[in-house]
């Protein structure tokens, strides 16, 4: 894991001191609301519906046990004993009080964390594959590049006032688990014919009001050219991005309006100019960073106990089948700890759970932890012989839900339970769907399914790329939920299609149930997933299930 240099530490502490003074001046009345407004945003602090919210960056989703314990301490000391993990691999505290925020930021600085650039029109937390450095299908750990980008973009003087916020995602695997195609810049590692590593560079992806899948502006960018190329890209965006209309200010609109050819040409031109100026300093820095991400020393031990438990214990087996992913070391597994217990708020962890997970990471997971954009926690390196003990410990804390990748593993943004921008609630929809399918006891039969819910058009819940997406809207003063189908957030990314009119709060869970029952009838075999079935049959049979059956029911 990357450790702060003296420079990093001094920078973060200086920012804490600055903000402490700004808060003091706001509280004593010497700064007005308007004067103060941009300042909290530079430090990740928002005013939400019921309280302030502090958004803390977890760079590329990597967090140490020590940091996790500090987050738990913050939750207990200044919040309500829990934290909410987000789709941008951040953690949000929902109840900080303004006078306490400087102390919270200082506590974060103590463990090399901060909330800088988690809001505002700048380069936000660079997100990465949550299985980075562990996945069996990975070409190379993308995190050294993510850290390089983080250092470069943090407080970068040219890019503090971009036309709009800017999100970068990176993966080192051909199977895209980082939704790179729905980011302003997506970086997907690949090898060229000569076996060298580079990135496919995607630009202009993004969800929200105008959902778009990113387009390839560079088929193969040698890894050594990453920084000058990304700087060129940002610089072109900074000049050409529209500042006159905030709904047209993202780079996806620049791409759309300028055209891919022309935008690529401008980027290449700037890149040629910038590349010379970097002079190899970025590569020296990258070499140092790489050393910080050296893989752990993997243990050699028998995996017999895993096999024995797997065949003897059906509860363990169900969990192993859904929550483990293949590790590049055959004796290891990647463990996803589900923060989606049925009926619980997706992405929330109590301070007790955070501490337990930190302990377990130390005991069984080479002290490595990740936050996934799917709002779960990952132990990337667990020796298979440790899995039974790990599972037992997780069970004690309500953390052994065997549902990763299933219908109850729902992404849900905070929605109108917290978010000031929301037009409807999303959390209670998520908890009700999860509980309903638990009652029906069919989620393992349904198989892989990504259901994603957002509380407004901004799509923080990634609903456009859910196999089933649910955006919540306000229709004439009533909560209303649309449905989109066929979305996909992987390397074969697609924006889901709207089914038709939305459903009322009390109708949306039955609507999802009708969809799923239709799928179970329509699939060719249990192996045909919801998404494959949708791709084979298209919208019609699902629309029938949603609307005709509903009317039939009403007429009956």
């Amino acid at each position: 894991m990357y450790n702060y240099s003296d420079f990093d530490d001094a920078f973060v502490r200086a920012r804490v001191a600055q903000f402490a003074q700004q808060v003091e001046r706001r509280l004593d009345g010497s700064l007005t609301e308007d004067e103060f407004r941009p300042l909290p945003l530079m430090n990740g602090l928002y005013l939400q519906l019921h309280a302030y919210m502090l958004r803390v960056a977890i760079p590329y989703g990597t967090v140490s046990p020590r940091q996790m314990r500090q987050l738990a301490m913050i939750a207990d000391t200044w919040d309500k004993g829990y934290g909410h993990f987000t789709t941008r691999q951040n953690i949000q505290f929902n109840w900080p009080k303004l006078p306490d925020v400087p102390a919270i930021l200082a506590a974060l600085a103590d463990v090399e964390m901060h909330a800088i650039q988690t809001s505002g029109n700048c380069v936000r937390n660079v997100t990465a594959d949550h299985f980075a450095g562990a996945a069996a299908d990975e070409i190379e750990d993308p995190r050294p590049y993510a850290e390089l980008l983080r250092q470069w973009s943090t407080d970068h003087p040219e890019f503090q006032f971009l036309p709009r916020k800017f999100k970068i995602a990176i993966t080192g695997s051909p199977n895209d688990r980082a939704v790179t195609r729905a980011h302003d810049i997506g970086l997907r590692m690949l090898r060229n014919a000569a076996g060298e590593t580079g990135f496919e560079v995607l630009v202009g992806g993004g969800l929200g009001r105008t959902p778009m899948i990113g387009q390839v502006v560079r088929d193969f960018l040698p890894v050594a050219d990453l920084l000058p190329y990304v700087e060129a890209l940002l610089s072109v965006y900074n000049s050409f991005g529209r500042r006159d209309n905030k709904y047209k200010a993202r780079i996806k609109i620049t791409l759309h309006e300028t055209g891919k050819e022309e935008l690529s040409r401008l980027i290449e031109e700037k890149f040629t100019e910038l590349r010379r100026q970097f002079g190899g300093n970025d590569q020296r820095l990258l070499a140092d960073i790489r050393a910080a991400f050296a893989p752990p020393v993997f243990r050699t031990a028998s995996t017999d106990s895993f096999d024995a438990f797997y065949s003897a214990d059906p509860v363990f087996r169900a969990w192993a089948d859904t929550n483990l992913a293949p590790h590049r070391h055959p004796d290891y597994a990647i463990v996803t700890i589900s923060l989606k217990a049925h009926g619980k708020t997706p992405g929330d962890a109590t301070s007790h759970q955070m501490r337990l997970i930190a302990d377990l990471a130390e005991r069984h997971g080479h002290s490595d932890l990740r936050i996934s954009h799917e709002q779960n926690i990952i132990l990337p390196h667990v020796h298979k012989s440790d899995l039974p003990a790990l599972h037992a410990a997780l069970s004690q804390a309500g953390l052994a839900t065997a549902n990763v990748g299933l219908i109850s593993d729902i992404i849900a943004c905070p929605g109108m339970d917290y978010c000031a921008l929301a037009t409807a609630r999303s959390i209670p929809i998520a908890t009700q769907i999860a509980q309903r399918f638990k009652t029906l006891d069919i989620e393992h039969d349904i198989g892989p399914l990504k259901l994603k819910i957002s509380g407004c058009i901004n799509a923080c819940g990634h609903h456009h790329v859910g196999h089933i997406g649910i955006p919540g809207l306000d229709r004439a003063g009533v909560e209303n939920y649309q449905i989109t189908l066929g979305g996909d957030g992987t390397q074969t990314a697609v924006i889901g299609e709207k089914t038709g009119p939305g459903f009322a709060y009390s109708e949306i869970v039955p609507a999802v149930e009708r969809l799923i029952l239709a799928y179970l009838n329509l699939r060719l075999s249990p192996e045909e997933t919801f998404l494959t079935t949708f791709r084979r049959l298209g919208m019609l049979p699902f629309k029938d299930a949603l609307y005709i059956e509903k009317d039939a029911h009403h007429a009956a």
Partner: protein
Amino acid sequence: MTPRAFAKVVTANDLRIGDVVYLTADDRWTRHHHLAELIEDEAHAQMRLLHAIAQKSVIVGAYLADARQGGRGPEPVHFREAFRTRGPSNYAHGKQADHV
């Protein structure tokens, strides 16, 4: 449909805690919607809002929200404002915690 008569309350968040507050007729900030001043005159509403905004070291984000007269006093009209009188629906946090 007959146009709804003008009826608003001034609401904001407490600067320090962030909790939702409402302006009362006697110039206090209350945490309870039903104790707010129900303003039925548009010009008066604008004046009350300016008065609220001026209290920059007490509150933040003041605005006028639709309301109507209810049994105990003014009630929210829109569901967003109804949620603001209670707190989130996933935990008994926020205002609703004080009522239990």
